């Protein structure tokens, strides 16, 4: 039944856990919509026939609805719409809340290509390798204008904004190759901004990662030929450590927990900080990035607003490297194996 509907409605292959959820609601909504439109249409057609005019000057009865009728007109659609919304919002919360044990990949949109970098080292342009049956969190940003990362087979999409990280996650269910499209109009070659996701079984993925770390000769030659596209293979954390030194971060932020001009980097990631205005904020990639670009936006309580902005001084990959460096300064509690589903954080 579901397969048949998918074909009738031209839905692409469904290859992620989110896709299965979306398709179920999709069928419910589309079937209700078609039944409703045809229902109103046929009721109207019937009445046009039943109550056709018989004499040119025919007058009619005075018919007005009772309050009960009007109430019915309001409540029936409202019940359906709220049901759709309820299911849809639950699923949306699910897809915007990555599981704690998900694997991270940084995604950067740039006119007109997608760049992927893994905290473990390898980079890629227009090809994203991920393991099957493992949650993958995408941290998405843009180098220039707005883009939007869309994988029809996974039913996921998220805008890429310059100077900011957005996130979405997915768990691919079937090994294979899936198309990535850009859905936010970004200029001349918008429709050519294509990439693909290669989903590999875990073992093959591990091999792929190993091979990337070793650095095949071919890759090194490519890297030499076009350094702008493929930065030399290195761990992002190490890059971040170097950058934190050269950009002057460490002049104010300690990495051993000691007090200084700014909050210490040690254990900062995922910590809940109290802000000047009494609110609390969880330190995630988005907050760290925002604090680099607009330091005064959410000032941690007890610190002066003295940090200069790094807007325009750091490029997307450099921001990502520093974020990864800060993330590394904690005791990681990464679980292995299959996901247990998302861990819900309170909605900020």
């Amino acid at each position, binding site marked *: 039944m579901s397969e048949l509907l998918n074909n009738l*409605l*031209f*839905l692409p292959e469904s290859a992620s856990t989110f896709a299965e959820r*979306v398709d179920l*609601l999709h069928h419910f*909504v589309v079937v209700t*919509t078609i039944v*409703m*439109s045809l229902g*109103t*249409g046929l*009721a*109207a057609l019937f*009445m*046009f026939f039943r*109550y*056709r*005019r*018989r004499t040119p*000057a*025919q*007058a*009619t009865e*005075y018919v*007005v*609805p009772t309050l009960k009728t009007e109430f019915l*007109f309001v409540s029936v*659609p409202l019940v359906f719409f709220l049901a*759709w*919304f309820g299911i*849809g919002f639950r699923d*949306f919360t699910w897809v915007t*809340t990555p599981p704690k044990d998900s694997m991270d990949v940084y995604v950067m949109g740039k006119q007109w290509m997608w760049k992927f970098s893994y905290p473990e080292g390898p980079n890629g342009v227009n090809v994203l390798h991920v393991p099957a049956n493992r949650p993958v969190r995408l941290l998405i940003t843009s180098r220039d*204008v*707005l883009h*939007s990362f*869309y994988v*029809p087979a996974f*039913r*996921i*999409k*998220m805008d890429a*904004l*310059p100077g*900011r990280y*957005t996130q979405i996650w997915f768990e691919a269910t079937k090994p294979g190759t899936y*198309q990535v*499209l*850009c859905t936010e*109009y970004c*200029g*001349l070659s*918008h*429709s050519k901004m*294509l990439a693909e996701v290669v989903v590999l079984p875990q073992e093959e993925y591990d091999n792929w990662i190993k091979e990337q770390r070793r650095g095949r000769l071919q890759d090194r030659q490519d890297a030499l030929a076009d350094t702008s596209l493929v930065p030399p293979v290195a761990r992002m954390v190490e890059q971040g450590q170097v950058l934190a030194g050269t950009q002057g971060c460490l002049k104010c932020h300690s990495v051993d927990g000691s007090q200084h001009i700014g909050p210490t980097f040690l254990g900062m990631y995922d910590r809940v900080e109290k802000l000047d205005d009494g609110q609390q904020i969880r330190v995630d990639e988005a907050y760290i990035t925002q604090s680099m*670009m607009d330091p005064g936006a959410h000032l941690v309580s007890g610190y002066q607003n003295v940090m200069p902005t790094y*807007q*325009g001084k750091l490029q997307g990959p450099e921001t990502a490297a520093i974020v990864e460096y800060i993330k590394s300064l904690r005791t990681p509690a990464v679980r292995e194996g299959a996901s247990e589903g998302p861990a819900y954080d309170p*909605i*900020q």
Partner: protein
Amino acid sequence: MTPSSSLDTAGAAPHGEHHDHHPNYLVDGTTIKSWLLTVDHKRIGLMFLFWVLLFFLVGGIFALLIRIELLTPGPTIMDAMTYNRTFTLHGLVMIFLFMIPAIPAVFGNFMLPLMLGAKDVAFPRLNLASLYIYLAGAVIALWGMLNGGLDTGWTFYTPYSTHTTTTVAPVLFGAFIIGFSSIATGINFIVTCHTMRAPGITWFKMPLFVWAIYATSCIQVLATPVIGLLLVLVTVENLFSFGMFDPARGGDPVLFQHLFWFYSHPAVYIMVLPAFGVMSEVVSTFSRKNIFGYRAVAYSSLGIAFVGFFAWGHHMFVSGQSTFDAGVFGVLTMLVGVFTAIKVFNWIGTVYKGAVDFKTPFAYFCGFLFFTVFGGMTGIALGTVSLDVPWHDTYFVVAHFHFIMVGATIMAFLAALHYWFPKMFGRTYHEGWGLVSAALIILGFNATFIPQFLLGNNGMPRRYYDYPERFQALNVASTAGASLLAFGFIIIALYLAYALVYGKAAGKNPWRSKGYEWQSESPPPTHNFVGPQPTFPEEPHFYVDPKKAEVPDAV
């Protein structure tokens, strides 16, 4: 109150003898100057009709060029840059120069004073000014689009619009000026409704078309300044590199989207609310029946105008806004659907126990009903947050807004044109051709946009010059539908042009309508009504059989 049946013999034109002494507005002054400097709302409405139709033709030609380009993957008839400019021009012309003024500026202008028993709108000179402001804005915007062109899409999203090398400034400035025309028209209608109602026309005796125009005008006056100022900010940013929306200078591109949709989402209701109003008139006249729930339909117009302001965030579910915001805007979006449902059910209720005369305007009502229900419900589907994630910015959205915003409005525009044609020009058109072209247009519209819903399901993003092979079959189907649609419009243009010159005299009230506007001559004299100011003892849309009449108390 005794229901009067005097209008049933209205075809006999009892006031015909006054004709010579009170020339109709079309022949009262025949010099070019008497048209260009007129302050008669009917002549201004006609001039708006001329320009609006011209821009519809321009936008339509560009729509066809887009469809031909998308017939095959890869370059078909133009290069990528030309394509990007073409869809921008199509969107801008259709929205700012056609859809927004189409019904209010043409039929609102022409009918509103007639329906209120007034001699003219409240500010006749402002009314004329709004025509020229509209034209000035159109000329500047079109000049910019043809000289250099604009490739941002009609949404002008930053930072692309502040970085592109194409000429953004004149087009935005043109759109900014057109906004003033919209505001002026809106204020004029609001004041007219408040101050110019004939004795006896209380708020709840206003025809539903007037209610719809009133609600629309409120949106225009409140929302248009926001887009006006936004366009100025983007122009300044583009010309002088200000940093409002540019993250490289500390600005926020999402702020642009908030401001943009704060206008542009209510703008959708600027387009469809008047359409709803037209349909209330048409369904009542052609089924000879009082409106099923008059107050519910009137209030729901205000309801849509109100909640329409609180739904803009559903355009930004995947823009990185918070999950909580997505929930709030999702729920508020549902409310618009509920208000629309009230209208749809009450229109169908109006046909119940009516006396349906299946004339051309009624054929458009049928098409309208389908487009509104299907287009509206796909809108609610898009407001369902998790479904919007895959659908956002794909052809599903394109198909959805063409169904509700374009389909419903075009149906109403054509219904209004056919319904009021005898009133405006005093002549009738060929009914057979009317029905044939209505069938063609409804069929063509479905054939164009239903494949686009499926394209969106399949994942084709909008604003794509080129597309992967697997999308081709549905694109071919869509283009075929578009040509059918174009063919329908050509037929309409031909028989209406013929009717304008050779059509039979319509008589005062060819539809035997009880609408207030039909109590005047067709075409109406310059000051709308001959003799003393008319009074309207009956409630609007009142077709009750005097023999069977349980005359209603105040409803």
